[in-house]
C-alpha cells in the first residue's frame, strides 16, 4: 500500500516538474536550444579556440576554461578513495576468498588482455584534447583493467602502496601546474605553454599534461577502491 502511494506521489511530482518546465517560456523546449543567448556561444569564436588550442571544445571547457571544477572533481574522487580506506580501517588486508577458483587459462589470458586495455586507455588519455574522452574515461579504463586482474586471479593483490603514492603525486602535480600558472602568468590554472595549432597532438598547452595526470590519478584511485572492496582484515 505504502509503495503504491509513494509511486503515485512521485508520478505527481514528475508531472508537476514537467508542467512547470513547460509553462516557463525562458526554459527552451527540448532541441530548440539557441546557442546565441548562452555563454557557450563564445567558446566557438576563433579567438578563444586559438587561445586554448584544443580541438575538442568540451575538453577545452573541462580543463581550460573551467579547470577549477575538474580540480574539485578530482578532489571528490580523492576523498572518496581516502574515505573508503579509512572506513575499512588501517589494519593489514588480505584477499577476500570468493570460493571461486579460476583455472590456469583464465589467469594467463587475462594478463594479455590487461596489456591491450592499458594501451587503449593510454590512447584515450593522450588524445583527450582531440577526440572525445580524456583523463576520466582513460583512468576508468585503467581501473577496469586492474579489476579484470582481480576477478580472474583470486590471489592477485595490486601494489596498493604504489597506487597511493602515484595518486598523491599526480594530484599535487595538478595543483603545482595550477600554481605555476598563477606564478608565471596571471591566474591559477592559466595556460602558460604555447597553444600550438588546433588539431595536432602537441597542442592546447597544459591541457594534455593535466589530462594525463588526471588519468593516472583516477586510475590509481579507482583501483585502490577496488582493492579495498575485494579484501578484508588480516584474520591472523
Amino acid at each position, binding site marked *: 500500500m505504502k509503495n503504491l502511494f509513494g509511486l503515485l506521489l*512521485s508520478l505527481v511530482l514528475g508531472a508537476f516538474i514537467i508542467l512547470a518546465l513547460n509553462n516557463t517560456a525562458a526554459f527552451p523546449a527540448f532541441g530548440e*536550444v539557441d546557442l546565441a543567448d548562452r555563454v557557450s556561444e563564445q567558446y566557438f569564436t576563433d579567438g578563444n579556440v586559438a587561445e586554448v588550442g584544443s580541438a575538442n571544445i568540451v575538453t577545452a*571547457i573541462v580543463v581550460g576554461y573551467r579547470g577549477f571544477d575538474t580540480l574539485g572533481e578530482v578532489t571528490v574522487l580523492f576523498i572518496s578513495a581516502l574515505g573508503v580506506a579509512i572506513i575499512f580501517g588501517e589494519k593489514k588486508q588480505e584477499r577476500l576468498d570468493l570460493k571461486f577458483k579460476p583455472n590456469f587459462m583464465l589467469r594467463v589470458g587475462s594478463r594479455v588482455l590487461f596489456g591491450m586495455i592499458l594501451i587503449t586507455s593510454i590512447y584515450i588519455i593522450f588524445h583527450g584534447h582531440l577526440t572525445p574522452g580524456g583523463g576520466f574515461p582513460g583512468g576508468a579504463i585503467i581501473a577496469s583493467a586492474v579489476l579484470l586482474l582481480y576477478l580472474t586471479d583470486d590471489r592477485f593483490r595490486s601494489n596498493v602502496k604504489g597506487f597511493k603514492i602515484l595518486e598523491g603525486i599526480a594530484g599535487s602535480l595538478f595543483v603545482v601546474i595550477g600554481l605555476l600558472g598563477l606564478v608565471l602568468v596571471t591566474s591559477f590554472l592559466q595556460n602558460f605553454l604555447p597553444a600550438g595549432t588546433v588539431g595536432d597532438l602537441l597542442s592546447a598547452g597544459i591541457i594534455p599534461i593535466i589530462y594525463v595526470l588526471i588519468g593516472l590519478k583516477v586510475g590509481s584511485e579507482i583501483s585502490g577502491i577496488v582493492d579495498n572492496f575485494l579484501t578484508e582484515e588480516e584474520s591472523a
Partner: protein
Amino acid sequence: MIQYAAIILFVFGLYGLFTNRNVIKMIVSLNVMEVGLNIFIISIGFTYDGIAPILSSTTANGLLYVDPLPQALVLTAIVIGVGTTALGLAIAKSIHKTYNTFDLDEMGDKE
C-alpha cells in the same frame, strides 16, 4: 521527449529511495536518480541538427554545434556520482560487518 523521460527517471530514483529499506537498493536508486539527472543535463544542451563540439580541420566553420558546457558539467556530475556511490557501498559493507544485514529495519533495534 528524452527530457521528460529523464525527469521521470529522476523521480523514480526519488521513489526508490523513498520506499526501500535495503541499503544496497537505496544506493542503486540513488544512482538511478543521478543517471536521470545526468541525462537531463545533457538534454539541456541538445539541438536537433547540432553536431558534437569537436573542431576538426575538415569541417568548415558556420556549422551548428551542440552546447558543449552541459557536457562538461555532466562529466563532473558523473564522477561525483561515482564518488558518492563508492563511499555509500563502503559504508554498506561496514554496516553489513556490524549488523550482518542490509535491511535498515532489522538493524534498527541494535542501537
